[in-house]
Each structure stands twice: as C-alpha cells, then as structure tokens.
C-alpha cells in the first residue's frame, strides 16, 4: 500500500479535573476510582470548545507541519460521537475553517470510539486509488458521562488529525484490517444527553474480544509477533484496559509507553487511539514499527500495521504542541466550575 501518513496534529483543551474532585461531590472515593481506572486526571473543554473547534485546531497544526496546501485536500472526514449538530456536518465547518472548500468531499463518521480510525481507512482507499491527493481523517470527542456515573471519571475531550497522502510519507501503512460484530455494550439513543452502557458487559465480550482478535489477525496476516513492534497503541477508555490487553497479547510496558495517554488526559473517545499514535510519532525515528488497534462500541476494532520512514527524520513538528505538552500541562478545575463549563447546571426557564 503506497498511501500513508504525511502529517498529523493533536489538540487537547486546557482544563483538567481529577477523579478525587469528582468523587468528593458524589460522596464516593474518587481517588480509589481513579486508581482503579488508572486515570489521574481528565481534560475538560472550555465552554467555547466543541468537536468542531478541536478538530480545526488539530488539523491546522497538521497542515502547517506538513506544508500542505488545503486546496489539495480531496476528502475530509471527522469521526466523533459528539458532533455539535445532529443534522449539519462537522466536516464542512472544519473544511471551511482550514481553507479546503469547495472542491472536496466531506462527511461525518460515527462509530463510537473508532470513527476516526474508520476515517483513516477510507482515506487510505481514496488516496491509494489515486482518486484524491490528500485525505484528512480526524477523530475528536467532547464526550460526557452522566453526573455520578462511572463514565464521568474518565470521559474527556481532545482530538487528532491525520493527513493521508502518497508523497513524503512519514509513516507507511503496511496493512489495515478490522473485526466487527453486533455487540450492545454501549450506546446513546437520539435525543439523550448521556450514553448508557452494559456495565461489566463492556469488558470481556466487547473491548477485550474485539481488540485481541483484530490484533492477532493483523499480526498473523503480516507474519509478525509483538517483538517486531517498537510501539503499540490500543484504544484506551481508561488506563487499565489497554495495559491488560497489551499484556495478554505479549507486549511490554516499554512498547506501550508513548501510546498510553488516557491516564493523563482521560478518555477522549474517538481521539484516544489517535492521540496515542500522535504521541508515538512525536517520539519516533525512522524505521520504527507501530501496531495500532482502535475500538468502538457496538462493536468493532480497526487494526493498523505501520512503519515510519526516513522522511520522519526531516518532519518539522515545531508548529503546534507535542502531545507530551498536553500530558504535562493544564489548569485544575473545581467540580462546580467543571459543571458550569459542561452545561450540567440547570439555568432555569428551560
């Protein structure tokens, strides 16, 4: 496959809240909850941020880093489960905001947390078939858990944009495949503000089965074992699931180190695996092999067998912020301000 990643950018909002602070309000041991989930803090978007603004920030970074003319973008897809409009695409606003309109195709993708990786696969097809020069795939979310629900301790905001092309590829896509079934582990009905989930059902038959099946299938198809990879990135709804699935598959902590970002920013849903991959690419040199396995409830896993090229040594990451910046920086909020920012306070008259 000659199509690959030519540039990327990530963005995480500035505010943070800790599980301890959330638990303080609901009368539960939030710190223990955070330790159980391996989530130290989660990001919180400002009231003027949403999936459209976060997607735009990350894509602008990617376009400047790769010196890509936005008018050469032939397709732009935004994967999210928190699109600001139920009807009216996120992708058109993002395309306009980066100057990519009007000669491109654009659409919003939705597949729980794996809509962004599905968008990458679509772009690989279009670019590989030489129908377009550049395809843009973005995964972003500003998801919320219901107040007091377990999801509230991890649901956060952030996103990453990947530009797929054929020239100056910094990371080749050697192979991609998916594993998909109808599994009711997590859902949100139209008109509902917060999602519902099947509790413990979200573990074994959902996340673990799909991620391990996809990981095993792609390694079998590529004739590789975990030892062949310098880095591995899993979808990370919390900090524990990816560690456990990685260990089961035979990966070490060192291989997972850069790809695991949820402990420091929370679960960014469609952004999670992609921000992890962005962090790996921030640190990677040429000829490093990377395995990425996304997961979306409902359910499916997209797996990617990647290898960086010599081009990555020349890649200029100086514009925008490295993922590490977002892991180390942020402004802590009280639960009260967090509730105000996230629209959890009833303002009356509604």
């Amino acid at each position, binding site marked *: 496959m000659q199509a690959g990643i030519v540039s990327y950018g990530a963005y995480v909002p500035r505010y943070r809240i*800790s599980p301890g602070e959330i638990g303080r309000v609901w009368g539960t041991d939030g710190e223990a909850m955070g330790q159980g989930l391996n989530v130290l803090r989660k990001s919180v978007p400002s*009231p003027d941020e949403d999936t459209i603004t976060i997607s735009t920030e990350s894509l602008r970074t990617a376009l400047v880093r790769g010196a890509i003319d936005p008018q050469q973008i032939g397709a732009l897809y935004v994967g999210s489960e928190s699109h600001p409009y139920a009807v009216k695409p996120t992708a058109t606003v993002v395309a306009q905001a980066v100057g990519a309109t009007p000669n491109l195709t654009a659409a919003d993708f939705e597949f729980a947390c794996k809509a962004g990786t599905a968008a990458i696969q679509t772009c690989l097809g279009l670019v590989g078939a030489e129908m377009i020069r550049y395809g843009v795939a973005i995964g972003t979310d500003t998801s919320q858990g219901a107040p007091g629900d377990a999801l509230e301790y991890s649901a956060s905001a952030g996103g990453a944009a990947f530009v797929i092309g054929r020239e100056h590829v910094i990371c080749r896509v050697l192979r991609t495949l998916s594993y998909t079934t109808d599994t009711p582990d997590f859902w949100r009905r139209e008109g509902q503000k917060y999602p519902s989930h099947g509790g413990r059902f979200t573990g074994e038959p959902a996340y673990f089965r799909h991620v391990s099946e996809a990981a095993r299938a792609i390694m079998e198809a590529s004739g590789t074992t975990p030892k062949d990879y*310098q880095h591995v990135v899993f979808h990370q709804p919390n900090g524990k699931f990816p560690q456990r699935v990685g260990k089961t598959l035979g990966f070490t902590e060192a291989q997972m180190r850069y790809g695991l970002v949820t402990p420091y920013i929370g679960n960014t849903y469609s952004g999670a695996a992609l921000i992890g991959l962005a962090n790996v690419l921030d640190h990677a*040199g040429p000829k490093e092999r990377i395995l990425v396995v996304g997961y979306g409830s409902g359910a499916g896993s997209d797996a990617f067998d990647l290898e960086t090229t010599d081009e990555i040594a020349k890649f200029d990451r100086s514009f925008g912020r490295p993922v590490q910046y977002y892991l180390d920086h942020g402004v802590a909020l009280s639960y009260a301000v967090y509730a105000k920012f996230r629209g959890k306070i009833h303002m009356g008259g*509604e």
Partner: protein
Amino acid sequence: MSIARFWRETPRRYNLGGSKCTNCNTVYFPPRSVCPECTHHRQSIEKMVPFQLSGEGEVLSYTVVHEPAEGFEMLVPYVLALVRTTEGPVLTGQVVDIEPEGIRIGLKVRATFRKLREEGKAGVIHYGYKFAPAEEADTTPVARSPAEPAPEPREPTRARA
C-alpha cells in the same frame, strides 16, 4: 446578527481573510477594496488582492470584562484585547486559555478557532477566531497527583538504530 450576515463574513471570521495592496504592500483586515495609504487612491484600484493573516501577533491593549456580551456569560471574567498582528492590522478579540491576572501588554498570542455564540438551544452555532497565548507564554504545569511519578525527560526512541 442574522444567519445570512454571519455566513457572508465566514472567510473573515474563520480564516482571518483580509486584503493586501500590491502597490504599497499594506495589509487590511477587514478587507478593503481601495487602499487609503496610496496617495492617489486610484493607484490601488485593481491592485487589492485577498490576503490571509497568519494569526500571530501581540497584545496592544486589553480589558477584563465582567459584564458579558450575549453568549459570553459562561466565560466571565474574560479578557478582551486589541491585538497587533505581525502583518500590521489591529484586531479586537477575546484572549482565551488565560486568567485575567496573566494578561499583559506585549503578550504574544496566536489566533485560535472557537465557538462565538449559539442561537439558543435549537439555533445555529457561530464559530470564528479568538486569541490564545502563543507557545512559550502558557506554561501552566498541571497539578500532579501524589501517585504520579515526576515527568521524566522523554528521549526519542531509536530501537533499531
């Protein structure tokens, strides 16, 4: 503001689309169709071209707003600043991701894309530029939890080198 008017101003609000006089190289935002700098304005006719500002600049002056404009209620108190862009034009905009005590004249900022206003719960959402502190200006370290190890310097891996 009507949806139509907001939509017409999209290039300006989304992309900082201004204009430039190719006669004297002066940049304008909002865009102009003639150049007031050229002594004979007619010299500039047909010489104005669209020009996109980089979004980089510095704070020329500011005020901290406590009585919010419509749609900014959740952000109070917030900073409103005059920003001199590197290309010359002075823009008015909110500076986000900063506490009022952190703002100062000369602060380097860059344009960022944010929600400006929502027309109620069911109406259209308006987006456009605001400003945020540039890279080096905003270095708020996160409050680390006691359980968390201190950040180690992360060197690029060179597994196959």
